[in-house]
C-alpha cells in the first residue's frame, strides 16, 4: 500500500511513464492530442461545423472537405474536431461528479461504520441492482434530454459502482493500526478521513476513475446515439454515428464510421492507460 508521500514525491512522472510502457505512453500522447484538438477546435477546424450547404450534401472527400460532407452538406472533419469537446467534457464531468459523490458516501460509510454503513450499503446494493446505463436512459427519457441531464443521470447511475469499491478499500484501511493511533491522539474523524484515509485509497481510486472515464465515454455516446443525450445540431460523435446510421441505406458510410473510430480511439487509449496504472495495485477493478 502506498503512503500519502508517494503520490506527491519527486520523479513521479518518470515512474508513471515507466508504469505506462510503450503502449501506455502512446495512449497518453493520443489523449493529449485529443485534448489539444478540443481546446483549439475553433482554430483547427477548417469549416464552421454548423454551416449548412445543401448543394454539397454527401460531398466526397476533397481538398476543401477532407472527409467529405454529411446529409446537410456540413464538413465532417470540422464536426469531428468540434465533437471532441463534448467527447472529453461530458465524461470528465460524469467522472468528477460521480467520483466526488462516491468518495463522500464511501468514506462516510467507512468512517462511521455501524448502522450508517449498513444503510448506505443497502442503498448502494439496491441501486446496484439496476444497470447504470438503463437507469440513465430511463431518467433521460422520462425527464429531459440534453447534455447536462445525460451527464447528471450517468453520474448518479455510476456512483454505486465506485462507492462500493472505495468503501471496501477504505474499510480495510480504516482497520489499520495507524488510523487508530491517530484517533487516540485526538485527531477528529473528518480530518483523519481527508488527510490520511482518502490519500491512502487514492491511488486505487484514481485508477478506477480513469477506467470509468472510458465507460462514461461509451455510455454518454450511447445515450446521444439513441437520441436522449446531446441534441442536434451540436457536433457530437455519438450523434454523428446516429445520423450516419440513418444514411447507411443511401450507401453513405463516412460520417458514422469516422465518428465511430474517434470514439473507439479515445476509449482504447483511456483503457490502456487505466490498465497499465492498475497493474501496480495487484488488483483488477
Amino acid at each position: 500500500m502506498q503512503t500519502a508521500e508517494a503520490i506527491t514525491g519527486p520523479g513521479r512522472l518518470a515512474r508513471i511513464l515507466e508504469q505506462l510502457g510503450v503502449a501506455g505512453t502512446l495512449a497518453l500522447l493520443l489523449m493529449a492530442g485529443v485534448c489539444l484538438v478540443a481546446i483549439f477546435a475553433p482554430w483547427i477546424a477548417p469549416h464552421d461545423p454548423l454551416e449548412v450547404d445543401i448543394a454539397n450534401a454527401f460531398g466526397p472527400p476533397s481538398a476543401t472537405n477532407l472527409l467529405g460532407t454529411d446529409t446537410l452538406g456540413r464538413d465532417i472533419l470540422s464536426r469531428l474536431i468540434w465533437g471532441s469537446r463534448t467527447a472529453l467534457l461530458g465524461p470528465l464531468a460524469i467522472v468528477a461528479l460521480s467520483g466526488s459523490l462516491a468518495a463522500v458516501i464511501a468514506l462516510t460509510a467507512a468512517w462511521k461504520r455501524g448502522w450508517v454503513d449498513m444503510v448506505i450499503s443497502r442503498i448502494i446494493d439496491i441501486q446496484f441492482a439496476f444497470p447504470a446505463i438503463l437507469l440513465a436512459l430511463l431518467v433521460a427519457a422520462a425527464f429531459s434530454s440534453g447534455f447536462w441531464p445525460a451527464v447528471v443521470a450517468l453520474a448518479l447511475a455510476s456512483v454505486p459502482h465506485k462507492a462500493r469499491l472505495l468503501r471496501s478499500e477504505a474499510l480495510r484501511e480504516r482497520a489499520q493500526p495507524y488510523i487508530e493511533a491517530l484517533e487516540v491522539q485526538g485527531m477528529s474523524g473528518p480530518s483523519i478521513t481527508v488527510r490520511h484515509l482518502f490519500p491512502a485509497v487514492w491511488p486505487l481510486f484514481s485508477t478506477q476513475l480513469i477506467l470509468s472515464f472510458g465507460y462514461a465515454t461509451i455510455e454518454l455516446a450511447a445515450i446521444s446515439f439513441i437520441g436522449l443525450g446531446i441534441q442536434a445540431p451540436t457536433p457530437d460523435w455519438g450523434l454523428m454515428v446516429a445520423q450516419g446510421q440513418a444514411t447507411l441505406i443511401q450507401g453513405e458510410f463516412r460520417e458514422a464510421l469516422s465518428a465511430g473510430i474517434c470514439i473507439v480511439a479515445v476509449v482504447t487509449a483511456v483503457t490502456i492507460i487505466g490498465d497499465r496504472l492498475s497493474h501496480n495495485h495487484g488488483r483488477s477493478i
Partner: protein
Amino acid sequence: MTRAIAFRTLSVASTLLVSSFIIFAAMHYSPGSSLAFILGGGENTATPEQIALVEAQFGLKDPLLLRYWHWISGVFTGDWGRSYALREDVWRLLGSRLPTTLGLIGLACTLSIAFGVAVGVLASIAGRAAGIAITIVTTIGFATPGFVAAIILVSIFAVKLGWFPALGSGDGFANSLWHLVLPSIALGLTTSCVIARITRVAMAAELGREHVQTAIIRGVPKHLILWRHVLRNALIPIVTVSGISAATMVAGTVVIEFAFGLHGIGTLLIQAVQQKDVPVVQAISIVLVGAYVLVNFVVDLLYLLIDPRVRLANR
C-alpha cells in the same frame, strides 16, 4: 446454506419492491401525462368528457401512494394491468417481445464465450507475435461500443457483402436467429474481448504451475495437459467474468436493439417511458432488475460448484 439462500431471496424481493416504488414515483412525477397515449397518442381531439372519464378510470389524478397501492395490489393478485398505449395485457405484450431479447442475449453469450475462450487459449499457446496481435485486437474490441460495432458490421456484412440482413427481427425461428447474428456480435464484442484476456491470463498462470510443468516434462500430450490441468482450473475466473458480462448485456441490449431496429423489451421500455405507459414500464423494469439480480445469483452458485475451496469454506 438454507439460511444464506433465504436471506438472499429476501434481499432480492426487497430490492425489487423498493426499485418498483422508485420507478413508479419517477413516472408519477415526470413531466407529461399518460392521458395523451391512453387517448390515442396523436393530435388531441379528445372532448372534455373523455378526458374526465379517462382521468377517473385510470386514477391519473390520484396521489402517488394511492396509485402505487392500486398497482402493487393488482400485482399481488396476478393482475399487472394493460398497456395504456397498446391496449394489450402487459404480459402478453412482453411475451411477444421477450423472445427477441432473450435470443439476442443468449446468442451473444454463447458467441462471446466460445470466441473469447478460443482466442484466449490461442493467445496463451501461440507465439509472441501472435500474442501481441491478439492483445491489440482484443484491446480495441473491448473499447468498441456496441452501437459503433453495429455500424461497422452493418456496413460490411449487410450492405457491402449482403451476407446478413441489415436490420429488423425477421419471422420464424431460423430466420429470426439469422437476423440476430449481427446484433449478437455487436452486443457480445466487449464481453468476448474481456473473456479472451481473462482466459489468457488464467491459462498463463495455470501453465506456470508446478504440476503442469511436471506433466510437460513427463511428456503428457499437450492437448491433454491443456484440457485436464490448465483450462479446467482456469475456468473459475472465466465463469465469473462471463456471468458479470451476461448481467451487463441485460442493460446493453437496449442500445443494440435500438441500433438494429429490433422489437425487444429494451426498445419497448424506452417507448413506454416516453409514453408514460406505467404498467409496461413497471413490468419491464421488474423483469430487467430481476434478471440482473438472478444472473449475479447464478454466478455465485456456479462459483460454489466449480471451486471446491469456496464450497469447503461455506460449509
